């Protein structure tokens, strides 16, 4: 892609900084998630996910990511964590569900890791 040459970026394991590269590929997905601030938009999405995604012109990769419910896939498709959090809410996932899913552990194990970080 074009912007890789822009500057030599720091690589942080397990971490994608949402910059122009991600913003560029993620716009449609993020715009859809931004709409979910409104309860009626959340309901419209829940009534017909596919139609709603098409209306917001999601790319195929973004649609697949949403269908999969996999947050890492949504991030790879350019989703921003603040906006995706609104979508996760619709799916009934809280932040520990999401954390567990992304790190491949149980919710209990993820919560225990958080508690341990404070010890």
């Amino acid at each position, binding site marked *: 892609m074009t912007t890789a040459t822009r500057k030599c*970026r*720091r690589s*942080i*394991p*397990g*971490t*994608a*900084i*949402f*910059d*122009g590269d991600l*913003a560029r590929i993620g*716009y449609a997905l*993020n*715009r859809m*998630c*931004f709409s*979910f*601030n*409104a*309860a009626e938009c*959340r309901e419209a999405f829940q009534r017909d996910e596919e139609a709603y995604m098409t209306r917001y012109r999601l790319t195929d990769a973004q649609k697949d990511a949403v269908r999969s419910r996999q*947050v*890492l896939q949504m*991030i790879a498709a350019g989703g*921003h*964590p*603040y*906006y*995706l*959090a*609104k979508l996760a*809410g*619709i799916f009934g996932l*809280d*932040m*520990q569900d*999401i*954390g567990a899913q*992304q*790190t491949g552990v149980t919710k209990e194990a*993820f919560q225990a*890791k*958080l*508690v341990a*970080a*404070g010890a």
Partner: protein
Amino acid sequence: MAHIIGSISTSHVPAIGGALARQKQQDPYWKPFFDAYGKAREWLGRERPDVVVILHNDHGLNFFLDKMPTFAVGAADVYKNADEGWGIPPLAEARGCVDLSWQIVETLIEDEFDITTCQEALVDHSVSLPLALLWPEGKDAGAWPVEIVPVCINTVLAPYPSASRCYRLGQSLRRAIESWDDDRRVLIIASGGLSHQLDGERAGFINKPFDLQFMDSLVADPTWITQYSNEELVELTGTQGIELLMWVAARGVLDETPVKQHHAHYHVPISNTATGLLVLEPA
């Protein structure tokens, strides 16, 4: 000349709004967190601020990527809180201190900060929760005892402003407040951080030693943090840990004045976040 009484820096987490809505303050998970605000409230009871300048970051309620400002200054009569997507009942709207807003707008532009001015704005949990934690009686009454000026710093889209730029933003805010021809008492609030990361394989990352060192540095060595680039700060504190920029800007407002730490508290975790609370006053 307005008087700056000091600053309160605090974390914010949407889950706090849920806990407030369900009255979980005495729940074992929440009690250590909520109890820590008692000392800050006592201090506010003595110091009686009239106006709050609140440094915060929007999470996709008021700003979207179609117009994402680096620094945005509110200049509205009223700031409504609203549903951010999870159906948590909105808290009371905040009255704006419009006169101080324009004083800040003029001073920041004069000091070459290229702000976005907002005559209308919604505020998310990054504004409503600090108010609710510091003035719970205001939350219950549906009206806060202070007027506010929200100053929003971009932590959504990289590149974010550097820690050094944010510190100098704070210095310019100080100049604005001190040149405001008004005798009201002004409190600075920073809302954000500390270390946390919601996204990626590193989700759940928390860095307690760094957070504590950062909190200590704010008392005696306030520009210590400016040695780090924003990428380094993300590595050290997580993708959302970068919200500590609010604390840096708030410290810039107090600036060279020797400061005294009135109260400090650190608690891990609330949801996925390391929470901090720091009350500073001019020594």
